[in-house]
Protein backbone atom coordinates (compact mmCIF):
# COMPACT_ATOMS: atom_id res chain seq x y z
CA UNK A 1 0.00 0.00 0.00
CA UNK A 2 2.16 2.82 -1.19
CA UNK A 3 -0.10 5.79 -1.04
CA UNK A 4 2.47 8.16 0.45
CA UNK A 5 1.76 10.62 3.18
CA UNK A 6 -1.69 11.60 4.26
CA UNK A 7 -2.08 14.51 6.66
CA UNK A 8 -5.42 14.99 8.41
CA UNK A 9 -6.56 17.84 10.63
CA UNK A 10 -2.99 18.70 11.56
CA UNK A 11 -2.41 21.58 13.96
CA UNK A 12 0.83 22.57 15.65
CA UNK A 13 1.82 24.90 18.44
CA UNK A 14 4.91 26.52 19.89
CA UNK A 15 3.72 27.05 23.45
CA UNK A 16 0.49 29.02 23.13
CA UNK A 17 1.28 30.10 19.57
CA UNK A 18 -0.67 28.04 17.04
CA UNK A 19 1.39 27.96 13.86
CA UNK A 20 -0.53 25.32 11.84
CA UNK A 21 -4.29 25.27 11.56
CA UNK A 22 -6.20 22.17 10.60
CA UNK A 23 -4.11 21.12 7.60
CA UNK A 24 -5.27 18.36 5.24
CA UNK A 25 -2.89 17.22 2.50
CA UNK A 26 -1.80 14.19 0.55
CA UNK A 27 1.71 13.65 -0.77
CA UNK A 28 1.97 10.83 -3.28
CA UNK A 29 4.99 8.66 -4.10
CA UNK A 30 6.77 9.02 -7.41
CA UNK A 31 6.21 12.74 -7.41
CA UNK A 32 7.65 15.87 -5.88
CA UNK A 33 5.42 17.99 -3.71
CA UNK A 34 6.50 21.60 -3.25
CA UNK A 35 5.50 23.65 -0.22
CA UNK A 36 5.50 27.40 -0.82
CA UNK A 37 4.48 30.48 1.15
CA UNK A 38 5.90 33.61 2.71
CA UNK A 39 8.43 33.14 5.49
CA UNK A 40 6.98 32.43 8.90
CA UNK A 41 3.81 30.85 7.47
CA UNK A 42 4.58 27.40 8.89
CA UNK A 43 6.24 25.55 6.00
CA UNK A 44 9.09 24.19 8.12
CA UNK A 45 6.77 23.35 10.96
CA UNK A 46 4.54 21.44 8.55
CA UNK A 47 7.27 19.12 7.27
CA UNK A 48 8.77 18.77 10.76
CA UNK A 49 5.42 17.43 11.92
CA UNK A 50 5.62 14.75 9.25
CA UNK A 51 8.82 13.18 10.61
CA UNK A 52 8.03 13.99 14.23
CA UNK A 53 10.83 16.51 14.57
CA UNK A 54 8.46 19.26 15.69
CA UNK A 55 8.15 17.71 19.14
CA UNK A 56 11.93 17.96 19.65
CA UNK A 57 11.52 21.68 20.35
CA UNK A 58 10.65 22.36 24.01
CA UNK A 59 6.95 23.20 24.52
CA UNK A 60 6.09 22.31 20.92
CA UNK A 61 2.85 20.34 20.45
CA UNK A 62 1.05 18.57 17.61
CA UNK A 63 -2.56 17.55 17.09
CA UNK A 64 -4.10 15.62 14.23
CA UNK A 65 -3.10 12.59 12.17
CA UNK A 66 -0.26 11.78 9.80
CA UNK A 67 -0.29 8.49 7.92
CA UNK A 68 2.57 6.89 6.00
CA UNK A 69 1.28 4.25 3.60
CA UNK A 70 -1.74 3.89 5.82
CA UNK A 71 0.16 3.62 9.12
CA UNK A 72 -0.45 6.15 11.86
CA UNK A 73 2.74 8.07 12.72
CA UNK A 74 1.31 9.61 15.86
CA UNK A 75 -0.13 6.40 17.27
CA UNK A 76 0.45 5.81 21.00
CA UNK A 77 2.84 2.92 20.39
CA UNK A 78 4.83 4.55 17.59
CA UNK A 79 8.47 5.34 18.33
CA UNK A 80 9.47 8.70 16.81
CA UNK A 81 12.98 7.32 16.23
CA UNK A 82 11.54 4.71 13.86
CA UNK A 83 9.44 7.35 12.08
CA UNK A 84 12.57 9.45 11.49
CA UNK A 85 14.37 6.49 9.96
CA UNK A 86 11.54 6.04 7.47
CA UNK A 87 11.22 9.75 6.70
CA UNK A 88 14.53 11.46 6.02
CA UNK A 89 15.13 15.17 6.26
CA UNK A 90 17.49 17.69 4.70
CA UNK A 91 17.83 21.09 6.30
CA UNK A 92 18.21 24.59 4.96
CA UNK A 93 21.84 24.89 5.99
CA UNK A 94 24.03 21.93 5.13
CA UNK A 95 25.15 20.47 8.45
CA UNK A 96 27.74 17.72 8.03
CA UNK A 97 28.88 16.25 11.34
CA UNK A 98 32.03 18.31 11.94
CA UNK A 99 34.04 15.59 13.64
CA UNK A 100 33.48 13.04 10.87
CA UNK A 101 34.98 12.25 7.47
CA UNK A 102 32.87 12.18 4.30
CA UNK A 103 32.57 8.42 4.61
CA UNK A 104 31.64 8.54 8.28
CA UNK A 105 29.04 11.23 7.65
CA UNK A 106 27.22 9.06 5.15
CA UNK A 107 27.65 5.96 7.27
CA UNK A 108 26.55 7.76 10.45
CA UNK A 109 22.87 6.86 10.23
CA UNK A 110 23.63 3.16 9.90
CA UNK A 111 26.53 3.07 12.37
CA UNK A 112 24.63 4.93 15.06
CA UNK A 113 21.78 2.50 14.76
CA UNK A 114 24.00 -0.50 15.21
CA UNK A 115 25.22 -1.59 11.77
CA UNK A 116 28.84 -2.84 12.02
CA UNK A 117 29.24 -4.90 8.86
CA UNK A 118 31.99 -3.11 6.92
CA UNK A 119 31.00 -4.55 3.57
CA UNK A 120 27.46 -3.34 3.97
CA UNK A 121 28.63 0.09 5.14
CA UNK A 122 30.89 0.50 2.10
CA UNK A 123 28.15 -0.60 -0.27
CA UNK A 124 25.64 1.74 1.32
CA UNK A 125 27.96 4.72 1.34
CA UNK A 126 28.76 4.29 -2.33
CA UNK A 127 25.13 3.81 -3.28
CA UNK A 128 24.00 6.85 -1.29
CA UNK A 129 26.77 9.07 -2.65
CA UNK A 130 25.94 7.98 -6.21
CA UNK A 131 22.27 8.62 -5.59
CA UNK A 132 23.16 12.09 -4.33
CA UNK A 133 25.32 12.70 -7.44
CA UNK A 134 28.39 13.25 -5.30
CA UNK A 135 30.29 9.99 -5.74
CA UNK A 136 32.44 11.07 -8.70
CA UNK A 137 33.55 14.22 -6.91
CA UNK A 138 34.54 12.62 -3.60
CA UNK A 139 35.33 8.97 -4.28
CA UNK A 140 39.08 9.56 -3.90
CA UNK A 141 38.85 11.58 -0.71
CA UNK A 142 36.32 9.77 1.41
CA UNK A 143 38.58 10.14 4.44
CA UNK A 144 38.59 13.92 4.20
CA UNK A 145 36.45 15.94 6.55
CA UNK A 146 32.90 16.62 5.42
CA UNK A 147 33.39 20.24 6.38
CA UNK A 148 36.10 20.63 3.73
CA UNK A 149 33.58 20.38 0.88
CA UNK A 150 31.92 23.33 -0.86
CA UNK A 151 28.43 24.41 0.23
CA UNK A 152 26.71 22.62 -2.63
CA UNK A 153 28.74 19.47 -2.05
CA UNK A 154 27.97 19.62 1.66
CA UNK A 155 24.27 19.78 0.92
CA UNK A 156 24.55 16.76 -1.38
CA UNK A 157 26.55 15.03 1.37
CA UNK A 158 23.64 15.69 3.72
CA UNK A 159 21.25 14.29 1.12
CA UNK A 160 23.46 11.19 0.82
CA UNK A 161 23.52 10.87 4.59
CA UNK A 162 19.73 10.96 4.66
CA UNK A 163 19.45 8.47 1.78
CA UNK A 164 21.89 6.01 3.36
CA UNK A 165 19.28 4.80 5.84
CA UNK A 166 16.92 4.08 2.94
CA UNK A 167 14.00 6.27 3.89
CA UNK A 168 10.64 5.98 2.12
CA UNK A 169 10.15 9.73 2.14
CA UNK A 170 12.60 12.63 1.87
CA UNK A 171 11.66 16.01 3.32
CA UNK A 172 13.76 18.98 2.22
CA UNK A 173 13.52 22.32 3.95
CA UNK A 174 14.65 25.02 1.51
CA UNK A 175 17.64 22.87 0.52
CA UNK A 176 19.01 25.43 -1.94
CA UNK A 177 18.52 28.69 -0.12
CA UNK A 178 22.14 28.79 1.05
CA UNK A 179 23.58 27.77 -2.32
CA UNK A 180 24.75 29.48 -5.50
CA UNK A 181 22.81 29.02 -8.80
CA UNK A 182 25.03 26.24 -10.14
CA UNK A 183 24.82 24.21 -6.94
CA UNK A 184 21.08 24.91 -6.90
CA UNK A 185 20.66 23.55 -10.42
CA UNK A 186 22.49 20.35 -9.39
CA UNK A 187 20.25 19.83 -6.39
CA UNK A 188 17.14 20.48 -8.47
CA UNK A 189 18.25 17.87 -10.99
CA UNK A 190 18.80 15.52 -8.12
CA UNK A 191 15.34 16.14 -6.68
CA UNK A 192 13.73 15.21 -9.99
CA UNK A 193 15.87 12.06 -10.05
CA UNK A 194 15.03 11.09 -6.47
CA UNK A 195 11.27 11.07 -6.92
CA UNK A 196 11.56 7.79 -8.80
CA UNK A 197 12.63 6.05 -5.63
CA UNK A 198 10.90 8.03 -2.91
CA UNK A 199 8.16 10.43 -1.98
CA UNK A 200 9.80 13.86 -2.03
CA UNK A 201 8.55 17.00 -0.29
CA UNK A 202 10.46 20.23 -0.88
CA UNK A 203 9.91 23.47 0.95
CA UNK A 204 10.96 26.44 -1.13
CA UNK A 205 10.45 30.16 -1.12
CA UNK A 206 11.39 30.22 -4.77
CA UNK A 207 8.30 29.81 -6.95
CA UNK A 208 10.28 29.17 -10.13
CA UNK A 209 11.92 26.31 -8.31
CA UNK A 210 8.58 24.89 -7.27
CA UNK A 211 7.39 25.15 -10.87
CA UNK A 212 10.55 23.46 -12.17
CA UNK A 213 10.74 20.46 -9.87
CA UNK A 214 7.31 19.61 -8.53
CA UNK A 215 4.15 17.91 -9.70
CA UNK A 216 2.12 19.06 -6.71
CA UNK A 217 2.23 22.29 -4.76
CA UNK A 218 0.77 23.44 -1.47
CA UNK A 219 0.52 27.11 -0.60
CA UNK A 220 0.64 28.08 3.06
CA UNK A 221 -0.35 31.41 4.57
CA UNK A 222 -0.39 32.19 8.29
CA UNK A 223 -0.42 28.52 9.24
CA UNK A 224 -3.24 27.61 6.88
CA UNK A 225 -2.91 25.44 3.81
CA UNK A 226 -4.69 27.83 1.48
CA UNK A 227 -4.47 25.77 -1.66
CA UNK A 228 -3.12 22.39 -2.65
CA UNK A 229 -3.13 21.08 -6.20
CA UNK A 230 -1.25 20.20 -9.35
CA UNK A 231 1.65 22.62 -9.69
CA UNK A 232 0.68 23.82 -13.15
CA UNK A 233 -2.92 24.56 -12.10
CA UNK A 234 -1.85 26.31 -8.94
CA UNK A 235 0.45 28.65 -10.81
CA UNK A 236 -1.77 29.26 -13.84
CA UNK A 237 -5.31 29.07 -12.51
CA UNK A 238 -5.18 29.49 -8.74
CA UNK A 239 -8.58 28.96 -7.19
CA UNK A 240 -7.95 31.20 -4.20
CA UNK A 241 -7.48 34.93 -4.47
CA UNK A 242 -4.66 34.80 -1.89
CA UNK A 243 -2.76 32.18 -3.91
CA UNK A 244 -3.13 34.32 -7.00
CA UNK A 245 -1.79 37.37 -5.19
CA UNK A 246 1.20 35.38 -3.94
CA UNK A 247 2.17 33.60 -7.16
CA UNK A 248 1.80 36.80 -9.18
CA UNK A 249 4.12 38.49 -6.72
CA UNK A 250 1.62 40.95 -5.32
CA UNK A 251 2.88 40.31 -1.83
CA UNK A 252 5.35 38.26 0.19
Amino acid at each position, binding site marked *: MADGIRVMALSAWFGQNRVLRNVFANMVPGAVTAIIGPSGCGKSTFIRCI*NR*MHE*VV*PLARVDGRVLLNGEELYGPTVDP*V*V*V*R*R*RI*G*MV*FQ*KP*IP*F*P*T*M*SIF*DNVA*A*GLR*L*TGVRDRGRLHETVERALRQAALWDEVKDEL*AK*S*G*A*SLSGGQQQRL*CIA*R*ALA*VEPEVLLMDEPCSALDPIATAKIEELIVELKRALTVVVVTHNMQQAARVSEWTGFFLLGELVEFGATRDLFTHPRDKRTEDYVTGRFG
Partner: protein
Amino acid sequence: MTELARRRLYDRVMRGLAGAAAGVVILPLVLILIFLVYRGSAALNLDFFTHLPKPVGEPGGGMANAIVGTLILLAIASAVGLPLGIFGGLFLAESRGSRLPWLVRFLADVLNGVPSIVIGIFAYTLLVLPMRRFSALAGGIALGVIMIPIVLRTTEELVRLVPASLREAALALGVPEWKVILRIVLPTARAGIVTGAMVAIARVAGETAPLLFTAFGNRFWHQGIDQPIAALPIQIFAYAISPFEDWHRQAWAGALVLIAMVFCVSLVARTATRGLGRPTR
Protein backbone atom coordinates in the same frame (compact mmCIF):
# COMPACT_ATOMS: atom_id res chain seq x y z
CA MET B 1 38.42 70.58 24.42
CA THR B 2 36.39 69.23 21.53
CA GLU B 3 34.24 66.15 21.94
CA LEU B 4 36.54 64.13 19.70
CA ALA B 5 39.69 65.13 21.58
CA ARG B 6 38.01 64.29 24.84
CA ARG B 7 37.11 60.84 23.58
CA ARG B 8 40.63 60.28 22.29
CA LEU B 9 42.10 61.19 25.64
CA TYR B 10 39.61 58.93 27.39
CA ASP B 11 40.54 56.11 25.00
CA ARG B 12 44.26 56.58 25.73
CA VAL B 13 43.81 56.62 29.47
CA MET B 14 41.69 53.48 29.36
CA ARG B 15 44.14 51.67 27.11
CA GLY B 16 46.96 52.67 29.45
CA LEU B 17 45.08 51.39 32.50
CA ALA B 18 44.18 48.09 30.82
CA GLY B 19 47.77 47.59 29.70
CA ALA B 20 49.09 48.36 33.17
CA ALA B 21 46.61 45.93 34.72
CA ALA B 22 47.74 43.20 32.31
CA GLY B 23 51.35 43.91 33.24
CA VAL B 24 50.60 43.72 36.95
CA VAL B 25 48.82 40.41 36.40
CA ILE B 26 51.79 38.87 34.61
CA LEU B 27 54.45 40.33 36.90
CA PRO B 28 53.97 38.00 39.91
CA LEU B 29 54.02 34.95 37.62
CA VAL B 30 57.26 36.10 35.98
CA LEU B 31 58.83 36.85 39.36
CA ILE B 32 57.80 33.49 40.77
CA LEU B 33 59.25 31.70 37.75
CA ILE B 34 62.53 33.61 37.87
CA PHE B 35 62.88 33.03 41.59
CA LEU B 36 62.03 29.33 41.32
CA VAL B 37 64.51 28.74 38.53
CA TYR B 38 67.15 30.67 40.47
CA ARG B 39 66.65 28.81 43.75
CA GLY B 40 65.47 25.46 42.43
CA SER B 41 67.91 24.67 39.65
CA ALA B 42 70.78 24.37 42.16
CA ALA B 43 69.43 21.08 43.58
CA LEU B 44 68.02 19.88 40.31
CA ASN B 45 70.03 16.93 38.97
CA LEU B 46 69.44 13.42 37.73
CA ASP B 47 69.38 12.06 41.30
CA PHE B 48 66.49 14.35 42.08
CA PHE B 49 64.34 12.53 39.50
CA THR B 50 65.59 9.00 40.16
CA HIS B 51 66.38 8.69 43.88
CA LEU B 52 64.41 8.37 47.09
CA PRO B 53 64.92 10.96 49.85
CA LYS B 54 67.97 10.28 51.99
CA PRO B 55 67.61 9.84 55.77
CA VAL B 56 67.97 12.95 57.91
CA GLY B 57 71.53 14.24 57.96
CA GLU B 58 72.73 12.48 54.82
CA PRO B 59 73.15 14.83 51.87
CA GLY B 60 71.84 14.09 48.34
CA GLY B 61 68.86 11.96 47.42
CA GLY B 62 65.86 13.02 45.39
CA MET B 63 62.10 13.23 45.18
CA ALA B 64 61.45 10.50 42.61
CA ASN B 65 58.86 8.89 44.87
CA ALA B 66 57.01 12.17 45.28
CA ILE B 67 56.96 12.81 41.55
CA VAL B 68 55.57 9.33 40.89
CA GLY B 69 53.21 9.74 43.85
CA THR B 70 51.79 12.98 42.49
CA LEU B 71 51.21 11.33 39.13
CA ILE B 72 49.40 8.41 40.81
CA LEU B 73 47.30 10.78 42.90
CA LEU B 74 46.38 12.75 39.79
CA ALA B 75 45.42 9.51 38.01
CA ILE B 76 43.12 8.49 40.88
CA ALA B 77 41.70 12.01 41.05
CA SER B 78 41.01 11.95 37.31
CA ALA B 79 39.35 8.56 37.54
CA VAL B 80 36.96 10.04 40.12
CA GLY B 81 36.57 13.61 38.93
CA LEU B 82 36.46 13.31 35.14
CA PRO B 83 33.61 10.82 34.66
CA LEU B 84 31.47 12.42 37.37
CA GLY B 85 32.20 15.92 36.10
CA ILE B 86 31.72 15.11 32.42
CA PHE B 87 28.52 13.11 32.80
CA GLY B 88 27.16 15.55 35.34
CA GLY B 89 27.88 18.39 32.92
CA LEU B 90 26.16 16.48 30.11
CA PHE B 91 23.16 16.00 32.36
CA LEU B 92 23.02 19.71 33.17
CA ALA B 93 23.31 20.70 29.52
CA GLU B 94 20.76 18.22 28.24
CA SER B 95 18.09 18.10 30.92
CA ARG B 96 14.96 20.03 30.18
CA GLY B 97 13.62 20.23 33.72
CA SER B 98 14.57 23.21 35.81
CA ARG B 99 14.58 22.21 39.48
CA LEU B 100 17.08 19.35 39.63
CA PRO B 101 19.60 20.95 37.23
CA TRP B 102 19.31 24.18 39.20
CA LEU B 103 20.06 22.30 42.40
CA VAL B 104 23.02 20.43 40.92
CA ARG B 105 24.43 23.64 39.45
CA PHE B 106 24.02 25.41 42.79
CA LEU B 107 25.68 22.59 44.73
CA ALA B 108 28.53 22.46 42.21
CA ASP B 109 29.14 26.16 42.71
CA VAL B 110 29.09 25.70 46.46
CA LEU B 111 31.49 22.78 46.17
CA ASN B 112 33.76 24.91 44.03
CA GLY B 113 33.93 27.41 46.87
CA VAL B 114 34.59 24.91 49.64
CA PRO B 115 38.16 25.34 50.93
CA SER B 116 40.27 22.39 49.92
CA ILE B 117 41.23 21.66 53.51
CA VAL B 118 37.56 21.05 54.30
CA ILE B 119 37.42 18.53 51.49
CA GLY B 120 40.50 16.95 53.05
CA ILE B 121 38.72 16.64 56.40
CA PHE B 122 35.76 15.12 54.60
CA ALA B 123 37.98 12.48 52.96
CA TYR B 124 39.72 11.93 56.27
CA THR B 125 36.45 11.25 58.07
CA LEU B 126 34.90 9.12 55.36
CA LEU B 127 37.92 7.17 54.15
CA VAL B 128 40.94 7.45 56.39
CA LEU B 129 39.14 6.77 59.68
CA PRO B 130 37.13 3.72 58.52
CA MET B 131 40.16 2.29 56.68
CA ARG B 132 42.33 3.04 59.69
CA ARG B 133 45.14 4.31 57.53
CA PHE B 134 46.24 7.17 55.34
CA SER B 135 46.13 6.16 51.69
CA ALA B 136 46.70 7.20 48.11
CA LEU B 137 43.06 6.35 47.55
CA ALA B 138 41.84 8.88 50.12
CA GLY B 139 44.16 11.55 48.75
CA GLY B 140 43.17 10.87 45.14
CA ILE B 141 39.48 10.96 45.97
CA ALA B 142 39.87 14.24 47.86
CA LEU B 143 41.55 15.76 44.80
CA GLY B 144 38.92 14.20 42.52
CA VAL B 145 36.13 15.86 44.50
CA ILE B 146 37.85 19.21 44.03
CA MET B 147 37.97 18.55 40.27
CA ILE B 148 34.28 17.68 39.89
CA PRO B 149 32.74 21.18 39.89
CA ILE B 150 35.39 22.57 37.54
CA VAL B 151 34.92 19.79 34.99
CA LEU B 152 31.15 19.87 35.44
CA ARG B 153 30.70 23.52 34.63
CA THR B 154 33.11 23.58 31.67
CA THR B 155 31.48 20.48 30.20
CA GLU B 156 28.03 21.99 30.61
CA GLU B 157 29.04 25.23 28.94
CA LEU B 158 30.78 23.54 26.03
CA VAL B 159 27.99 21.04 25.41
CA ARG B 160 25.57 23.96 25.32
CA LEU B 161 27.70 25.57 22.63
CA VAL B 162 27.09 22.64 20.27
CA PRO B 163 24.48 24.02 17.86
CA ALA B 164 20.95 22.65 18.16
CA SER B 165 20.97 22.18 14.38
CA LEU B 166 23.66 19.52 14.74
CA ARG B 167 21.58 17.52 17.23
CA GLU B 168 18.55 17.90 14.99
CA ALA B 169 20.49 16.65 11.98
CA ALA B 170 21.40 13.53 13.93
CA LEU B 171 17.94 13.05 15.43
CA ALA B 172 16.41 13.36 11.95
CA LEU B 173 18.47 10.34 10.87
CA GLY B 174 16.55 8.24 13.33
CA VAL B 175 19.29 8.07 15.94
CA PRO B 176 18.08 7.70 19.54
CA GLU B 177 18.65 10.77 21.64
CA TRP B 178 21.18 9.24 24.05
CA LYS B 179 23.30 8.12 21.13
CA VAL B 180 23.12 11.58 19.58
CA ILE B 181 24.45 12.98 22.84
CA LEU B 182 27.25 10.44 23.27
CA ARG B 183 28.35 10.06 19.65
CA ILE B 184 27.68 13.48 18.09
CA VAL B 185 27.38 16.14 20.78
CA LEU B 186 30.13 14.93 23.10
CA PRO B 187 32.78 14.45 20.37
CA THR B 188 31.95 17.88 18.95
CA ALA B 189 32.54 19.47 22.35
CA ARG B 190 35.53 17.21 23.00
CA ALA B 191 38.36 19.69 22.60
CA GLY B 192 36.78 22.08 25.08
CA ILE B 193 36.04 19.33 27.57
CA VAL B 194 39.67 18.18 27.38
CA THR B 195 40.73 21.72 28.19
CA GLY B 196 38.40 21.82 31.20
CA ALA B 197 39.82 18.51 32.39
CA MET B 198 43.40 19.76 32.05
CA VAL B 199 42.60 22.96 33.91
CA ALA B 200 41.11 20.88 36.71
CA ILE B 201 44.15 18.59 36.85
CA ALA B 202 46.52 21.56 36.91
CA ARG B 203 44.45 23.08 39.67
CA VAL B 204 44.65 20.04 41.98
CA ALA B 205 48.23 19.10 41.15
CA GLY B 206 49.52 21.61 43.65
CA GLU B 207 46.90 21.09 46.36
CA THR B 208 48.63 20.44 49.66
CA ALA B 209 46.12 20.87 52.45
CA PRO B 210 43.77 18.00 51.57
CA LEU B 211 46.72 15.66 51.13
CA LEU B 212 48.22 16.30 54.57
CA PHE B 213 45.73 14.06 56.30
CA THR B 214 44.74 11.76 53.45
CA ALA B 215 47.78 10.78 51.36
CA PHE B 216 50.01 11.81 54.27
CA GLY B 217 53.31 11.40 52.48
CA ASN B 218 55.81 8.60 52.41
CA ARG B 219 59.59 8.40 52.25
CA PHE B 220 59.50 5.29 50.05
CA TRP B 221 58.19 4.22 46.66
CA HIS B 222 54.45 3.78 46.53
CA GLN B 223 53.23 0.55 48.08
CA GLY B 224 49.67 0.26 46.78
CA ILE B 225 46.77 2.64 46.72
CA ASP B 226 45.65 1.64 50.20
CA GLN B 227 48.95 2.88 51.68
CA PRO B 228 50.24 6.36 52.43
CA ILE B 229 51.86 7.87 49.37
CA ALA B 230 54.39 10.60 48.72
CA ALA B 231 53.33 13.70 46.83
CA LEU B 232 55.33 16.71 45.67
CA PRO B 233 53.33 19.34 47.58
CA ILE B 234 53.63 17.41 50.86
CA GLN B 235 57.31 16.79 50.31
CA ILE B 236 57.91 20.45 49.53
CA PHE B 237 56.05 21.45 52.66
CA ALA B 238 57.97 19.01 54.86
CA TYR B 239 61.34 20.02 53.45
CA ALA B 240 60.63 23.74 53.49
CA ILE B 241 59.85 23.81 57.22
CA SER B 242 62.81 21.58 58.08
CA PRO B 243 65.96 23.09 59.61
CA PHE B 244 68.31 21.64 56.94
CA GLU B 245 69.88 23.80 54.25
CA ASP B 246 70.08 20.86 51.83
CA TRP B 247 66.38 20.10 52.24
CA HIS B 248 65.50 23.74 51.59
CA ARG B 249 67.30 23.53 48.27
CA GLN B 250 65.42 20.33 47.43
CA ALA B 251 62.12 21.97 48.36
CA TRP B 252 62.86 24.71 45.83
CA ALA B 253 63.69 22.11 43.20
CA GLY B 254 60.47 20.26 44.00
CA ALA B 255 58.50 23.47 43.57
CA LEU B 256 60.16 24.05 40.22
CA VAL B 257 59.28 20.54 39.05
CA LEU B 258 55.69 20.97 40.24
CA ILE B 259 55.33 24.26 38.36
CA ALA B 260 56.84 22.65 35.27
CA MET B 261 54.28 19.83 35.49
CA VAL B 262 51.38 22.26 35.81
CA PHE B 263 52.84 24.29 32.96
CA CYS B 264 52.97 21.21 30.73
CA VAL B 265 49.38 20.30 31.53
CA SER B 266 48.24 23.85 30.77
CA LEU B 267 50.16 23.79 27.52
CA VAL B 268 48.43 20.57 26.48
CA ALA B 269 45.11 22.19 27.37
CA ARG B 270 45.88 25.21 25.18
CA THR B 271 46.91 23.06 22.25
CA ALA B 272 43.78 20.98 22.56
CA THR B 273 41.55 24.06 22.42
CA ARG B 274 43.14 25.21 19.24
CA GLY B 275 41.42 22.38 17.38
CA LEU B 276 38.04 23.26 18.88
CA GLY B 277 35.24 22.42 16.47
CA ARG B 278 37.66 21.37 13.81
CA PRO B 279 37.52 17.96 12.18
CA THR B 280 39.81 15.37 13.65
CA ARG B 281 40.23 12.79 10.92
